[in-house]
C-alpha cells in the first residue's frame, strides 16, 4: 500500500537544524522517530505533512542515562533499547515491564518511548508506568527549552502539551526515594500483541503508600489520586482492598468500543487494581513476579 501524499524528508544531525525546520513548517511538519505510527498515518492519509523530520540520527538521541536520582531516556531510544538496558531493567523494572507489553519485537526495535508518549492514545501502555514515576518530558524549541510534568502532558485523546514548534528531547523518570516495587497489569483480548483494553500500573512503596495509574479507562492515561489517598498508610487487607475497588468507578471514565464494553472495563479495572496491588506488595517483599495475573 503506497503513500499517496507527497512530502519532503529531512534527517538533520543537530537539534538546531530540527528546530529551524519546525520554525519554518510549524504544524505542517511531522516529527518521526521510529515511524511505526507515523508511516501508518501517512499511508492512511491521516497525516499530510509538508515535511517529515526524521530525528533518529540526532546526536545523543539513543542515550539512556541513569543516575542516583533518575533515569533519562533520550527521544530516539527504542523500546528494545529500554528492554536491553540492564540499568533500566534493574533500577526501573516497571518501565521495562510496561515497555515489554508494547506491540511486538519488530515494532519495539523501531518504536520509541518519546514517540509513544507523543501519540498519546488512551490505551498507551507506557502511560501508567511513567505516570506513577512522576516523569517529565523535556522539550526544545527555537524559543528555548522547557520541562512538562507527565501529569500535564496528556491533554486529551491523542493530544499533548507539545506545541507545534517543539521537539521532545528526552523523558526523565525520577527514582522513587523509598524502596518500592511495581507492576503493570494489562488486559488484552489475548496473550499476543494487542492494544490494551485496560491497563493499571501500581507502585507500592515501603512506607505503605501506593501510586496507581490507569490507561484505556478514560480519555487519557491518568493517576488515580483518590485511590492512592485511600490506600496511604494501610495494609492491603480485605477491607482496604474492597474500599479501593469501590473507588475505582469514580476514578475512571471507560467507554464501550470494539475492544471491550464499558461494563467489562469497569469490572476488570477493579479486579486489576486488586491483583496489581497484591502483586506489587508481593514483589516489594522480594517474591518473584507471578505469571498471568489475570488468568488465561
Amino acid at each position, binding site marked *: 500500500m*503506497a503513500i499517496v501524499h507527497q512530502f519532503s524528508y529531512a534527517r538533520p544531525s543537530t537539534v538546531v537544524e530540527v528546530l529551524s525546520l519546525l520554525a519554518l513548517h510549524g504544524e505542517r511538519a511531522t516529527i518521526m522517530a521510529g515511524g511505526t505510527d507515523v508511516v501508518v498515518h501517512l499511508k492512511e492519509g491521516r497525516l499530510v505533512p509538508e515535511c517529515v523530520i526524521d530525528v533518529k540520527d540526532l546526536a545523543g538521541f539513543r542515550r539512556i542515562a541513569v543516575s542516583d536520582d533518575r533515569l533519562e531516556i533520550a527521544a530516539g531510544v527504542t523500546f528494545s533499547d529500554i528492554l536491553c538496558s540492564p540499568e533500566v531493567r534493574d533500577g526501573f523494572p516497571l518501565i521495562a515491564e510496561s515497555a515489554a507489553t508494547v506491540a511486538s519485537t519488530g515494532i519495539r526495535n523501531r518504536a520509541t518511548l518519546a514517540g509513544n508518549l507523543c501519540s498519546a492514545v488512551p490505551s498507551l501502555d507506557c502511560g501508567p508506568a511513567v505516570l506513577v514515576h512522576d516523569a517529565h518530558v523535556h522539550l526544545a524549541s527555537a524559543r528555548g527549552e522547557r520541562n512538562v510534568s507527565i501529569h500535564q502532558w496528556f491533554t486529551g485523546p491523542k493530544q499533548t502539551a507539545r506545541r507545534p514548534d517543539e521537539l521532545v528531547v528526552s523523558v526523565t523518570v525520577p527514582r522513587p526515594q523509598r524502596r518500592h516495587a511495581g507492576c503493570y497489569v494489562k488486559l488484552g483480548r489475548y496473550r499476543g500483541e494487542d492494544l490494551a483494553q485496560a491497563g493499571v500500573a501500581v507502585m507500592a512503596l515501603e512506607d505503605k503508600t501506593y501510586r496507581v495509574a490507569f490507561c484505556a479507562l478514560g480519555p487519557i492515561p491518568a493517576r488515580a489520586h483518590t485511590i492512592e489517598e485511600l490506600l496511604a498508610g494501610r495494609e492491603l487487607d480485605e477491607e482496604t482492598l474492597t474500599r479501593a475497588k469501590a473507588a475505582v468507578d469514580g476514578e475512571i471514565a471507560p467507554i464501550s468500543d470494539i475492544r471491550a464494553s464499558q*461494563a*467489562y472495563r469497569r469490572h*476488570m479495572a477493579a*479486579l486489576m487494581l486488586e491483583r496489581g496491588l497484591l502483586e506489587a506488595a508481593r514483589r516489594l517483599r522480594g517474591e518473584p513476579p507471578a505469571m498471568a495475573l489475570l488468568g*488465561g
Partner: protein
Amino acid sequence: MSDYRFIGAPVERLEGREKVSGAAQFVDDVEFGPNVHYAWVVESPHAHALIRGIDTSHAQGMPGVVAVFTGKDFAGLHFGLYMKDRFVLAADRVRFVGEQVAVVVARSPAAAQAAAAAVWVDYEPLPAVFDQMEALKDDGVRVHPELGNYEHVPWFFPKAGTNIAHWRKIRRGDAAQGFADADVVVDGVFTVPRYAHCAIEPHGAVALFDQSGRLTVWTASQSPHTQRNLFAETLAPLGLTHHDVRVITPYVGGGFGGKAGVTMEILAATLATKLRGKPVKLCWSREQEFYNTYQRLGLRSELRMGVKRDGAITALSHTLYWDAGAYVEYGANVVNAVGLSATGPYRIPHVVIDSLCIYTNLPPGGPYRGFGYSEFLFGLESMVDKASHAIGMDPVAFRRHNAIREGDVLAYGASMNPNGLLEAIDRVAEEIKWGEKEPPSSSTALVGKGFSLLWKAPAMPPNASSTAFLKFNEDGSINILISAMEIGQGVLTAMAQIAAEVLTVPPHKIRVETPDTDRNPYEWQTVASHITWSTGNAVRRAALDAREQIFAVAERALHIPQESLYLEDETLKCRTRPDFCLALRSFVISGIQTEDGTYRGGPIVGRGMFMPEYASAVSDPETGQGGHPNVHYTVGAAALTLEVDRQTGKMRVRKVVEALDAGKAINPRMVKAQIEGGLVQGLATVLYEDMRFDEHGRLANPNFTDYKIPTAMDIPDEIVPIIVEVPQPDGPFGARGIGEHPMLPAAPMVANALEDALGVRLTSMPLTAEKVALAVMEKEARHGQTA
C-alpha cells in the same frame, strides 16, 4: 500393519525447500516488467444505494492515470458459481459497504489510489438490512428485486420477491411423532457471527489480454479451472471463449475457502480486455481482504431435540437462518450443504431441517474452511450436552449411544459410509481422561472439560471431477500434472506419494507443480476436502495407466507375459524370471530395443480421471429425499480441558485432543499438521475473533489490530492429534479428506467445557473472556437475589 512403502510414510514436503528459502513465488512476486499497470477500485460508502451518476473526468486527467471504468463500461457482465447474482462492477445499485463501483488504472499504485479518491459518485441511499431475521419480513428491504431472473443450479430454490435466495428443506420420518415419543424435549437458540479467513497472503490477480486476443490471468486462487470457466462465461459477450482464456496459479499463501471460486479476479480479467497488451495488476489491501472477498456466513439457529430416558434421540428440528450477505453465488451452497447434514453424525429417526439463505446488505458470504459445519455444530453439539444432562446421562456415553454407524440412513435417504466414529470417541475420551476432575492453577480458576463430535461431507456438484497426467523423464523421474492447488495442505507431496506407491519411484524423484490451465488437466476446485480423495484417485489411475503401458511394452518388446511383471525399486521385474531386471530409466523415454535393433514403446505418459458416478443432486424440494448429494462423510471426535478464571473470564486451553477418520493417512505427518493448525484456527473463532459492523453496515475491524488472529503466544498448552483409519471404499488406498474438519468442533467443545466449569451456558459466539466474565457476574447476581 500395511505393506505400503510410501503410503502412510512421513515424507518431507516436496516444495519445502522453495518455501523456507524464499524462492517460492506467489502471485505478487511474479514480474511483469515496466509496462505493468495498477488498478485501484472506488468503493461504495453505502450499504444500499442507487448510483445516480459517476463523474470520472477529474480522475481521468490526473498524472499517471491510464483509464477509469465504471459499471456502464461493463454493462451486463454478471457472474456467479452457483447463482449468477454478482457483478464485475456495480451497475445501478450497490449492496454493501466496500462494493466496487469504479476502477482506476494507472502507471503506479499511488497514482491509481490518488485518482480513485477523485472519482465522484452520486448516490441515492436506500434503506438497508443487516440482520437476516429483519430481512425475512414481508415489508422490508429487497436486496435483489431481480432475484426471480437469476440463473442458478437446479438444486437451489430461490423465492422471488423475497430475500430468500435458497431454502433447503429436509423432512424425514414424522417429527410430530418423534417429539411425542420423547421423554424430554430440549430447545435452544444459538448465534454465530461472521468471520474472516485471514490467509496471510491477500488476494491478487494480474491479467494480460495480449495483442493476439488471448487472455492470461495469474491469480492467487484455489480454483484455476473454475476461474477460467467463469472468466470465459462472463466475458463471452466480449467474444472470448474458453480457448482464449488461461489461468496460471503460482503458490497460494493460504486459502481456507477465501480463495475459492471467483471474487476480485474477475475485475482484473475484465479490465485487461479493455487494455490490450497491458498487464493489469490488482492487489487487494488487507482491508479489502476483509470486506470484499468472501466472509464466513453469520447464523442464527433454532433447535429442538427429543430424547428418551434410555438415551435415544427421537427427533430433531433444526432451523438455520443464514446471513448470507449481498451476493450468495457461492454462499448459498454453504446453506445447502448444512441443510443436508444438520443432524450431525447421529442416527435420528425423525428430522425436520430448514436451512434458509437470506440476503442482507453486508459483504458477500461464501466458503470458509468447514463450509457451514462449524456454525451449525456450535448449536447442535451444545444441545447434545443439554439433552444428555436433561436425562442424567454422561455426554460422551450419550454421544456414543446415538453415534451414526455404517449403513444408517441419512436424513436425505442415502446410506452412511464406513467410518470410525466410535473408535474416535473412545480414543479421545481416553486421552482427555474424560470424567476425571483436574485441579486449577489458581484460587479464582476452575477447570472444565468439553466434548464434541463432528462430521463433514465434501460439498460439491455431483459431477465434480479431477484429472491427472503423469509423464516420465529420461532418468526415470516423474512429473505429475494436476490442477489441484497447493495452498499449504501438502497436496503436491500426497500426490507424489500415491504415484510413488504404484510406480515404486520415490517421492523425491517426482515433481508436482502448481497449475496452468493450458497445460494441466481439469480439476473442479481445491475445496471441500475432496482433493486427497478425488485428485488422489485420478493420480492413482494415471500411475496405473503408466504401469500398464510399461508392462505392455515389455511384453511386446521382450515377450514376457504382462501378468508376470511387477515394479520394484524403480525397475521392472518378473515373477517367473528372478534374474530379469530392467531399470525404468532405461526405457521410459527411449523405449525398449528389440533383437533386430528396432525399438518398442516410447515416452510413458499416464492419464487418470475420477468422477463419482453415483452422486446426484436431484431430490424432492419439499423433503430433500431421493438424491445422493454427498459422496461420503469424514467423521471425528474432539475434547478439551479448559481452565477459566471465573472473575476475569480469561481462558487457557490446557489440552485439546482430536481424532479424525482419515480412511488412510497418505502422509500422517501432514494429517497431524492439519489437525494442529485447524484446531488453533477454530479455537480463535471461539475465543476472540469476531467481525463487527457498525449501524451503517461498515466493517469496524478490517485489520489485524482489531480482528485478532492467534499469535505464537495464543496456542493450547498441548494438542494431541489422533488418526483413525477406517478405509473409504472408493478412496485412493482408502483415503478421505480431513482438511476442513479439524476446526469444526472448536466452538461447542469450549461452550461445553465452560458449562462444565462454571455452570454457565453461552449461546452466542464468540465466547470471549468478556462474555464469560459478564455471564458469571449475571449468574452470581441472580443467585444473590434468590438467596
